[in-house]
């Protein structure tokens, strides 16, 4: 029976937030298609969690650390078993590495980095950014299955309190791994990345010098957000490119985006304008960033940011 299969990712035995978002939209799609949702997880514990998010049948495959071809083989095996109409992967590094390999093996297409998904007239419809976020395309994914990768933070979470699902254990092929993982380096241990953060605080040239990113970091730490940066500051060597928002083609969709000293070049706006709430602080009232801000403050970030950081700390203390 055609259904929706969600390929999940876990961390420490629990489903990652992005996977719970994918299960939520997957469940809604399955309901519109009058079918069921299945999941692929890496442990029995995660299977129960997937069930709470609506999965009726969960395939458990403990495949070890991520490896493209090992995971591709397992996912294809499950797809051939379940024959879903739709397969959702999360738009994470691993999801975006895996989905196209699976699609090419099956001879189908993929809608990547989608922020809207609907089941319309028996087809999967998705919305995704194109031309470095300067436009949005609504696409129909034909073929069986229709595959999409979901953008982190773009879909809300809903624990629907589903019951325990049927669990099927999948045995992975023991093929040799052609790509060996030698080491995982964590450069800034504990820092939130802009790709998955709910809140991003970004700094631009208005900070005047590299050391002033401390104003951004202080607020980001107080509010529990990630540190973002404009391309100008990255090019100037003030901060690592991992923080760059408006990195060509990378679109972020946090719940809250606070931009300080960012003028709002086309590339930056394209990268963050789909944030749900945007606050901009800039001393130039004509700065383009104000065109997309929900709340714009014309003022001195060196005064306002510390004041805001204090307010946030006070609010959190209660």
């Amino acid at each position, binding site marked *: 029976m055609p259904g929706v299969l969600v390929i999940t990712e876990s961390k420490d035995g629990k489903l990652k937030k992005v996977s719970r978002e994918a299960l939520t939209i997957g469940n809604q799609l399955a309901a519109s298609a009058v079918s069921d949702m299945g999941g692929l997880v890496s442990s029995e514990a995660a299977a129960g969690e997937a069930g709470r998010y609506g999965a009726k049948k969960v395939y458990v495959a403990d495949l070890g650390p991520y490896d493209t071809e090992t995971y591709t083989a397992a996912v294809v095996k499950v797809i051939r078993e379940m024959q879903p109409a739709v397969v959702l992967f999360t738009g994470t590094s691993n999801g975006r590495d895996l989905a196209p390999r699976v699609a*090419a093996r099956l001879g189908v297409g993929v809608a990547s980095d989608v922020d809207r998904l609907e089941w319309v007239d028996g087809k999967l419809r998705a919305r995704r950014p194109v031309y*470095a976020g300067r436009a949005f395309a609504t696409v129909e994914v034909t073929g069986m299955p229709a595959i999409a990768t979901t953008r982190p933070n773009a879909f809300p979470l809903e624990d629907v309190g589903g019951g325990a699902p049927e669990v099927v254990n999948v045995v992975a092929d023991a093929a040799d791994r052609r790509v060996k993982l030698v080491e995982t380096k964590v450069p800034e241990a504990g820092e939130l990345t802009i790709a998955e953060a709910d809140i991003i605080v970004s700094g631009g040239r208005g900070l005047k010098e590299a050391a002033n990113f401390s104003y951004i970091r202080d607020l980001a730490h107080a509010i529990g957000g990630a540190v973002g940066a404009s391309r100008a500051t990255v090019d100037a060597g003030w901060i690592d490119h991992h923080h760059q928002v408006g990195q060509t083609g990378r679109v972020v969709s946090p719940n809250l985006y606070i931009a300080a000293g960012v003028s709002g070049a086309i590339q930056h706006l394209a990268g963050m304008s789909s944030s749900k709430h945007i606050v901009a602080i800039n001393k130039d009232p004509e700065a383009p960033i104000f*065109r997309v801000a929900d709340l714009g403050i014309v003022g001195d970030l060196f005064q306002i940011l510390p004041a805001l950081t204090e307010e946030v700390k006070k609010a959190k203390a209660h």
Partner: protein
Amino acid sequence: MNSVVCISHVPDTESRIKIAGTKIDEAGLKFIVSPYDEFALEEAIRLKEKSGGDVTVVTFGPERAQQGLREALARGATKALHVKGESSDADSLGIAKVLAAAIRSVPHEVVFLGKQGVGTDNGLVGPMLAELLGYPQVNVVTHLEIADGKLTAHREIEGAEEVLETTTPAVVTAQKGLNEPRYSSLKGIMAAKKIAIDVKTVADLGLDEQDIYQQRVVVVTLELPPEKTGGRKIDGADAGAAAREILKYIKDEVKAL
């Protein structure tokens, strides 16, 4: 060590986009080699400079795509192959099939691409190509070493970096930070003019046009981002008051804190 670099020709990332139906209006638009492909090309050229061999740059696209190939040759690619066709009418799998067919006859140990083409921004062609060629893939690479058939790459993932090893032939997709792409020199541009671009059609590669242009992902609408309305601007001269206003917004509207 021979390599292939697959490039795409895309609108300049700083320019405004205009829409014409379900495609962009190309009139007056400047096209460039897709930014991530530049890192891929630079890496291939550096490997050639270190270990010799050919760097063959390949593209599937309309007539204007040859400008991208010329730029690549001017920077140091040694051969160029243009598969002529309306690549924008094909989806990523169609494009990957064309590239796979084109590459099979070119001697290579590594196939380089940018991690995504800044047109459709799908990020699919690299991995799909790897699957079609039956090669291992390493994506979003920020550091690469190749010697004697062994490839060591740093792959960027969320908040971390993986150090991976594999053997050639392999597909590598480039991320910003892999290297600093060079500019083409006048000398390079002049030398590039002497290199003939090999032009083929989809049919020349023995492919079924219907299959290549079969749109597995169909664009139904193409729109500019919605104009933001309802935004308000306030005077932040009183920093304390401004901070309280922002906090109120975060509590009431954003419902965070």
